[in-house]
C-alpha cells in the first residue's frame, strides 16, 4: 500500500461523497411537502482505479472488476456508489387533506465506495 504513489491533484477525482442539497421548491414539491423545505442528500462521484480500490471503501467485487478492466478494457470500470444511506422524515398533505408524517429510507448518502 505504501508503494502506491498518488499523482498530485488527482485525489479530487477519486470516488467520494459530494454535497447535494435538494430544495423541494426547485422540484415543485413544496406544494405538498410541508417540512422539511429540502435536505442534504449528497451524491457519489469519482473514479475507482484499480490502484486505489483498497483505499476507496471498495467491495471485493469492485477490486475484481477493476482488475478485469485492466486486463480487458471492454469490461467496464468499477463504479462509485453509495455504500451507506440514511433515512429522512417528511411531513406532507395528501389528496384527502390528511397531514402525514412518515420516514423514507435511503434518502441521504452518508458514505460512498467502489
Amino acid at each position, binding site marked *: 500500500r505504501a508503494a502506491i504513489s498518488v499523482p498530485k491533484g488527482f485525489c479530487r477525482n477519486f470516488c467520494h461523497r459530494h454535497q447535494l442539497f435538494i430544495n423541494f421548491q*426547485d*422540484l*415543485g*414539491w413544496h*406544494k*405538498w411537502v*410541508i*417540512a*422539511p423545505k429540502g*435536505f*442534504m442528500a449528497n451524491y457519489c462521484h469519482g473514479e475507482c482505479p484499480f490502484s486505489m480500490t483498497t483505499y476507496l471503501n471498495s467491495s471485493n467485487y469492485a477490486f475484481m472488476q477493476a482488475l478485469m478492466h485492466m486486463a480487458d478494457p471492454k469490461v467496464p470500470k468499477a463504479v462509485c456508489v453509495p455504500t451507506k444511506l*440514511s*433515512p*429522512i*422524515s*417528511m*411531513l*406532507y*398533505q*395528501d*389528496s*384527502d*387533506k*390528511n*397531514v*402525514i*408524517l*412518515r*420516514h*423514507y*429510507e435511503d434518502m*441521504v448518502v452518508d458514505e460512498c465506495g467502489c
Partner: protein
Amino acid sequence: PWGQTSEFQDSDLLQFLGLEKAPSPHRFQPVPRVLRKIIRAREAAAASGASQDLCYVKELGVRGNLLQLLPDQGFFLNTQKPFQDGSCLQKVLYFNLSAIKEKAKLTMAQLTLDLGPRSYYNLRPELVVALSVVQDRGVWGRSHPKVGRLLFLRSVPGPQGQLQFNLQGALKDWSSNRLKNLDLHLEILVKEDRYSRVTVQPENPCDRLLRSLHASLLVVTLNPKHCHPSSRKR
C-alpha cells in the same frame, strides 16, 4: 426547465410517496404543534449526524413509522334550536380511515377537540363533553344518526383549550371490521346553575363553540416490514 418536467415529477412523486391521487396543491391544513416538533427534532438529529430510530416516536411515546392526521369531515346537528336541556351543540364527527393500510399495526389513535383559544374570559360555563359511537348514520344532513355506545363523558372547566381522547380501542374494532370510516357523535352540554352567568358575557359561548370547534384524529401505525424491533433494539 423545472416547469417543463413537472408532469413527469408529479407522477413520480405519487409513486414515491405511496399516494393514489395527486395531493391538493391548495392550502395546508393546520399542523399540530407536536408534528412540527417531531419533524424539527428529526431534522436537527440528521444535521448533527446522530443515529435515529425513526420507528419510535419519542414525543408521543409510541412505536410507529407513519403518523397521519385525519381531518374531521362531519356536520353539526340541531343548529336551528340549540341550548335546549342544557345541550350546547351536537356534531357528527366523521373520519375517513381509508388512508390507514390494513397491514399496518395501529399503535395510537388520539382524537383532539380544539374548543378555541385559551383566555381568562372563557373560563365559564363548565361543560360536559359526551362522545359516543354512531351506530347508524342515517341519510347525510337529513335524518339524525342513531347514537350507540358512550365512549367518554368528561367535564371541562370552560369552552377553551384542547381535549384529547384515546380512541385506540374504538378504532381497533373498526379496523377489524375493515370499515373505511369512523363516525362519532359529539355532544357538548352546559352544566346547570352556571348557564345563567353566561349571558353576561359579550358572546354566547355555544355560538362561539359552533364556529371555533375543530376536531382531528392523529393515527400512528407501524409497518413491521419497515421496522424490525429486535435489530433496532440491538
